[in-house]
């Protein structure tokens, strides 16, 4: 009897210690590896996203690998990076797909291998990823349009040019749909042209020049990406008052905002996007429920640019 008591006690102890040992993954010795695949290597937008991701890395001890094509429209390269991430057995992939349909197969493949996929900023048309974190781009479009109306005197007819970056990214299509619906509800306002620059500054300049030359009525331009905005600015004729609302936080854009060339800048808190994507990926890996919340955005004007809130958003990468 005595031996049996001792034996059972020891067994219980053993079980407790084993349970304690295996219930938790030792994140210090074996950290999660996450691939962050953005659309493009450079740029303020993606830079802030990476910065946010790095902040989350510092906090959690995760290993991050940043992968991105040189050109934003190069979805083939993105597919290759996802394949690479699968081959290297990453625990999770954070992806901003630059094409709504072409990356579906490879994302499904990654998920079937047990890799958690978090889509950041843009999503895929059909296949569902584990999580999608983005800003409310439709609302962004609505706010842009409403701000545009406020720039003109009542009754002035508005002919707008919308210049997006990629035709096949959901962020673009959402902004455009927001713009279109708001314009449609407004008298005298019309989106006359909508096209895409494929983040090519030169192409953006060319399109702007051609459009402005061909149609003297165009008095409003929406540039939905920072490189595109640079192209548009370079194409603006001195003799015409053309209002411009653009995406981005480049120093050039900020200066133009202060100079009054750009009337408003749309800033997406991509730092937050990057940070939350990494945190969400870790939550998914740990089987915790990640926070589902839209990433905030702001429309910054010359008047508000040095306000405490907006200066932190606008100059975040300089901090």
């Amino acid at each position: 009897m005595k031996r049996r008591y001792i034996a059972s006690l020891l067994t219980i102890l053993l079980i407790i210690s084993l349970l304690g040992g295996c219930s938790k993954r030792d994140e210090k010795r074996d950290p999660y590896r996450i691939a962050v695949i953005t659309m493009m290597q450079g740029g303020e937008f993606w830079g802030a996203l990476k910065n946010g991701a790095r902040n989350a890395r510092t906090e959690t001890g995760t290993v991050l690998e940043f992968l991105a094509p040189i050109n934003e429209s190069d979805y083939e390269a993105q597919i290759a990076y996802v394949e690479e991430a699968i081959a290297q057995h990453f625990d999770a992939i954070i992806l901003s797909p630059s094409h709504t349909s072409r990356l579906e197969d490879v994302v499904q493949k990654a998920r079937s291998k047990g890799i958690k996929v978090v889509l950041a900023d843009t999503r895929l048309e059909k296949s569902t990823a584990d999580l999608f974190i983005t800003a409310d781009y439709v609302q962004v479009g609505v706010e842009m349009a409403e701000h545009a109306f406020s720039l003109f005197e009542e009754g002035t007819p508005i002919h707008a040019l919308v210049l997006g970056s990629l035709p096949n990214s959901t962020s673009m299509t959402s902004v455009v749909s927001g713009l279109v619906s708001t314009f449609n509800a407004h008298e005298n306002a019309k989106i006359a042209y909508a096209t895409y620059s494929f983040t090519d500054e030169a192409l953006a300049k060319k399109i702007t020049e051609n459009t402005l030359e061909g149609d003297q009525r165009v008095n409003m331009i929406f540039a939905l990406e920072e490189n595109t905005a640079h192209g548009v600015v370079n194409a603006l004729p001195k003799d015409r008052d053309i209002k411009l609302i653009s995406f981005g936080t480049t120093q050039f854009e900020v200066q133009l905002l202060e100079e009054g060339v750009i009337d408003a800048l749309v800033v997406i808190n991509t730092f937050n996007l990057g940070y939350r994507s990494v945190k969400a990926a870790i939550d998914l890996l740990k089987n915790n429920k990640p926070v589902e919340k839209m990433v905030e955005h702001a429309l910054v004007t010359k008047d508000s640019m040095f306000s405490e809130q907006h200066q932190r958003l606008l100059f975040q990468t300089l901090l």
Partner: protein
Amino acid sequence: MARKTQDWSIKTIVTIAIAVVSISFTLIVSAILFSEFSSTVRDNATVSTREIVRQINANLSYYINDIVSISGYAKDLAKQVYPLGKDEVEDKLATILSSRQDIVSLVLFDLEGNAVLSTSEAPLRPPEEITAQKWFNRTIGGEGNFYFTGPHVQQLSTSAYPWVITYSQQISYSQENGEMAQGLLLIDMNFSAVSELAKNAKLGSTGYVYFIDNNNKIVYHPLQQLINSNIFNEDIDSVEDYIFGTFTNTFEGRERLVIIDTVNNARWRIVGVAFMDELMSGLNQFATVMALILILCIIITIILARYVSGWISSPIKELERLMVAVERGDFSEPPTVKGNQEVEALSKSFSLMILRIRELMDDIVKSQELKRKFELDALQAKINPHFLYNTLDSVVWMAEQNDTEGVIRMIAALAKLFRISISKGHDIITLGEELEHVRNYLIIQQIRYQGKFEFSIEVEDGLQECPTIKLIVQPIVENAIYHGIKYLQEMGHISIRAYRRKPGAIVVEVRDNGVGMDEEKLTKILSFNASHTSKASGIGVRNVHQRVQLYYGSDFGLEISSELDEGTLVRIVIPEGESIHHIKVVQP
């Protein structure tokens, strides 16, 4: 399982007692130890955290003093614009700045916002934009006024947007014409120079240090970007009322150690935040080890308790076992139990008691035996006088007839008879001797009842030496003569036969062809009822039966069958014992 405590075994009680006492003692000691250790760890953590915060504060104060002293130098230079000239003064200022990476710009404005002295190469913003800024209008008011801003994007020129901390002070300077005027000195420090001071301070593994100004606005926070994005909240409220000090509170589910210190010259406060769970992580390890040791101690205690209780209780158990054996009647061995003093004493007393009981029982057996002997003797004694009287009567009669030979035979037989009867006081004689006794008796009776009967005695081989209690056959034969043969007209015959009957019994059969008995009489005799005293005929038979049964037990005794006018058959059944020697009463 609802057992009362008194039902528990000594072993259980002792085990529980030892276990409870020592486990609770161990628990109390560990609790005290743990609380002592944890308070020590806490104190140490607090002290070391406070030390880090103080160090950062010292560095920051040193840095700010440095800035103030540069501003002092700049103030001196500003007074020397006349006669040194603006360019020379600017050169001197530029020299200072070239050795200071952390100072972004140093500018002296007049009260309208025009730059008087500037180290900045980029063109400055128009005066109306300069004067509109906070650091400008906050400082204006009197000579000596100074102001430290929080981090902000500097708007001196339109070509750069650096994050800076601005130190501004209203000073007097000499204009180039020699007149003194009021102006505003601005020193922009790179924000990273300040943030570097606190950035690498790690309190615990994720604790941090941040600065707040006198309006409780964050000057620097390592997680500023997370705060901007509303991902992280800082607990400013609880710090608001403190100038310096240390406290712990719980914010967003984590216990924090907060250390506040005031920075000299800047109206800033430095706040160190460390997380208690991280500071105490060593304690968790200690607790785990302690818990393991505690469990081990408890296990050992229980084993020890069981061992000790076993050592105490096993002799008692052994004693109990012996007592139970005694209870069942096994007195064979006096118990000797080895164990502790008390149990050994108990065992000794018990064994003495057993010995005493054994003595008493032996005494009882002896006295019982004695009593039986007395009874036997008394029964045997009943035979003799009656027979002796008759025999001597016959001898007298024969002597009167001068039948000398008859007298001799009679007396000789009588002598033999008595010899066996007396048999040196032995109760047990051989069957041969018993039958010899009967033969002598029959010889005497044959002489008395001349020609009235004849007899025969047969003994199976090997039974001559078998033991028997004496004088059991003679009374039966006596009965056969007096109650059977005596009333017979023809020749009587008494046949005596001794043979074996299985298993292990000897039968001595006495058969006569006398008058026999009717059923009623037979039943009366067979009942061997002691209270039946009507006729003498029963006495002898009952006497024998009782004696046989007294001596050999109820399995033995007499069997009688009789038929009227046919005769009577009496079987004396006794056990067959080991052969014994003759008592040598019969002389060869």
